[in-house]
């Protein structure tokens, strides 16, 4: 047992590090202080910086390390992708704008579209020139996304789209999207779906930001009013949309090693707060109940970190990682919610204050307001538990009362 790189991994790591040192600045030590520039950029500025950085990475083949060279990748291994990610995380570089496109949409397009079509879209996406979004979820189809309503009706060589999508990350700055629609409401729900890609600039597409309970607007509603899509932009056969969507979602699950917790405050910040907070019986860090909580969350965080190491070991040895990687979000999200709530309790009456009036610029408060979303996005806690129960433990799937009923005969409760 050791945590060392193999000689090949070490060589790749130093290559990557040298390139990063030449092209980026190390991460700011300012952390959660107001001077940290990351608190001062708006989205437009961040996007501009991100596009420039993505272009630089693409030039070197680092934009998608596991993709073949002819698609602009490096033809590397999943372990090399992880090593790049670990090293890049030490630098002050933007992230996040291209993950959905490169991680899910483009692999789906390359899988189902003709070679010519795919080659038109792959490299601009890789270079950050074109951003993609994923148009699946709807107001009444979240966990049960196959129950979606958005209609696509054939009209000559075109399809005419009417309906509404929701929780679409990045739709407001996206150039293209992959869109899951209902083409046949007369058959059971999984069988009447069809996938398309389209330009987000198409007439009749309207993007409206959703104001989240946290106050921010990271997601959108997207409305389709008689939007025309040529049949040539269909991905997969008519009625096969569900299996196309599963391809997309499978690519989502293949993404490994990413920091699931984001950049929110964690144990280090909680210990810092506990040191600085004077409770009725002395310094909070000396309080037994505070220490117990710190220990519990620390052990969960470490358990997850070492679980990732087990996954990386499998990757490093060229094996398929075990199912243990599936526990990450179900641990991170509730921990984030409980930890931030507890930190606010330590601040006592003052815990209600946010921003500059609060320790760490209100990072715990922000985390507290963001955590409910993290427990839902990308699979709710409950759906993730179903997935573990069914795919890892081999327990039976839920009994589906809608399995053989035509979509338009399903009870909707509305």
């Amino acid at each position, binding site marked *: 047992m050791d945590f060392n790189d193999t000689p090949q991994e070490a060589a790749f790591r130093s290559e990557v590090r040298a390139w990063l040192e030449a092209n980026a600045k190390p991460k700011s030590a300012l952390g959660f202080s107001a001077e940290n520039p990351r608190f001062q950029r708006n989205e437009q500025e961040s996007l501009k910086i991100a596009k420039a950085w993505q272009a630089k990475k693409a030039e070197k083949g680092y934009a998608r390390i596991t993709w073949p060279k002819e698609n602009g990748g490096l033809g590397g291994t999943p372990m090399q992708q992880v090593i790049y990610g670990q090293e890049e995380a030490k630098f002050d570089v933007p992230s996040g704008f291209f993950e959905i496109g490169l991680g899910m949409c483009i692999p789906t397009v390359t899988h189902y579209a003709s070679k010519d079509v795919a080659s038109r879209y792959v490299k601009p996406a890789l270079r950050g020139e074109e951003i993609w979004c994923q148009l699946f979820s709807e107001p009444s189809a979240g966990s049960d996304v196959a129950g979606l309503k958005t209609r696509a009706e054939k009209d000559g060589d075109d399809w005419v789209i009417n309906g509404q999508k929701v929780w679409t990350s990045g739709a407001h700055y996206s150039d293209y999207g992959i869109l899951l629609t209902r083409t046949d409401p007369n058959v059971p729900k999984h069988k009447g779906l069809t996938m398309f890609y389209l330009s987000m600039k198409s007439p009749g597409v309207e993007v409206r930001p959703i104001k989240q309970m946290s106050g921010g607007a990271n997601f959108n509603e997207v409305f389709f009013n008689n939007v025309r899509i040529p049949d040539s932009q269909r991905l997969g056969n008519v009625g096969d949309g569900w299996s196309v969507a599963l391809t997309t979602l499978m690519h989502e699950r293949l993404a490994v090693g990413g920091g699931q917790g984001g950049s929110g405050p964690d144990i*280090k910040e909680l210990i810092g707060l506990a040191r600085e907070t004077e409770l009725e019986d002395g310094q909070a860090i000396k309080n037994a109940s505070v220490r117990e909580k710190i220990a519990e969350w620390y052990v969960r965080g470490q358990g997850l970190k070492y679980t990732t190491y087990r996954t990386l070991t499998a990757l490093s040895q060229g094996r398929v990682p075990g199912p243990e990687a599936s526990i990450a979000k179900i641990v991170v999200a509730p921990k984030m919610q409980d930890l931030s709530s507890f930190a606010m309790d330590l601040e006592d009456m003052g815990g209600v204050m946010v921003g500059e009036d609060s320790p760490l610029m209100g990072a715990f408060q922000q985390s507290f307001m963001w955590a409910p979303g993290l427990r839902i996005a990308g699979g709710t806690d409950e759906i993730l538990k179903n997935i573990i129960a069914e795919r890892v433990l081999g327990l039976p799937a839920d009994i589906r009362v809608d399995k053989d009923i035509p979509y338009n005969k399903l009870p909707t409760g509305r």
Partner: protein
Amino acid sequence: MNFDFSDDQKMLKDQARKFLTEKCSTKVVRRILESDEPYDKALWKQIAEMGWLGTAIPEEFGGLGLGHLELCVVAEELGRAVAPVPFSSSVYLATEALLIAGSDAQKKKYLPKLAAGELIGTFAIAEGPQPPSPKTVKATFKGGKLDGTKAPVPDGDVADFAIVLARSADGAGERSLSLAIVDLKGAGVSRRAVKTVDPSRSQAELTFKGAAAEQLGAAGDGWELAKRVLDRAAILMAFEQVGGADACLVMAKDYALNRYAFGRTIASFQAIKHKLADMYVLNELARSNAYFGAWALSTNAADLPEAAAGARISATDAFHNASKENIQTHGGMGFTWELDCHLYYRRSKTLSLALGASRVWKDRLVTHLEKKNVA
């Protein structure tokens, strides 16, 4: 990155599992649970013959000279089998104490016999229903003589010798305690088996009245050494706990798949599916924390105390959860003597207390984090 056991270690684990499946069914565990027999002597003898007792003892002292990673994989299987033998007392505690603190003469005297199973050792630190500490330990070790009472002492009724934490100087400071090795068959020692929640493992009260004992490690080092021994044992025991927790998940899953209610297998109800998914999550976290402990133990890393606390807290949490929710999954049947659920529930609690409760380890963990200025 090579954060996994080697193929040889995995093979040893498979062998251990196969052996224990054959020789240590729950029938064997129940025989110890339901009788006055303190442990399964035949099983103990076979375990000794396979060399497991000397896994981490160097060859020069009669062991296999393998290492702690090998011991970890054996421990996991012993935990899965709820084995009714004094393995943890003799191997994780007495042997480890001698390895880190014994003089050359002491190692020569005890380790070969521990490795061969000719001697059973134990570690006596508790004095009744409160955590032992420099403030509370009353037993004394002065002028080569031990006086006082220790209880509960795991396997204290069957051990040949005990390593005892006792007061060697006045005051409540950490330097007031020392470790002493005492022959439990010698003069001035009396013992009485105590009843516990887990009769598949025996425990005793030891009373010393001027019993001759020899010092282990330097005078005044007792508390520091005890903590080091507990750290090492915590990692090994975490593997036992992980094995036990895994056994509970398998048991709960098998039962849920085969039990029908309301016209369907109960494994198809989300209330059960989510319960088992929660078990899986805690078990995996515990396994990963235990792996880090194994790495720290095998490399004598500076992070060993932190790794030990992490492994122990996580494994205790996982086994407790798995053993209680296994009963819950079995419903009324789970509460019967006849089903095996209670064997794990008992063992889980016993292991969780054996080296000190989670509460104590959580406090120690945060102390390490503060020192490291974590993080």
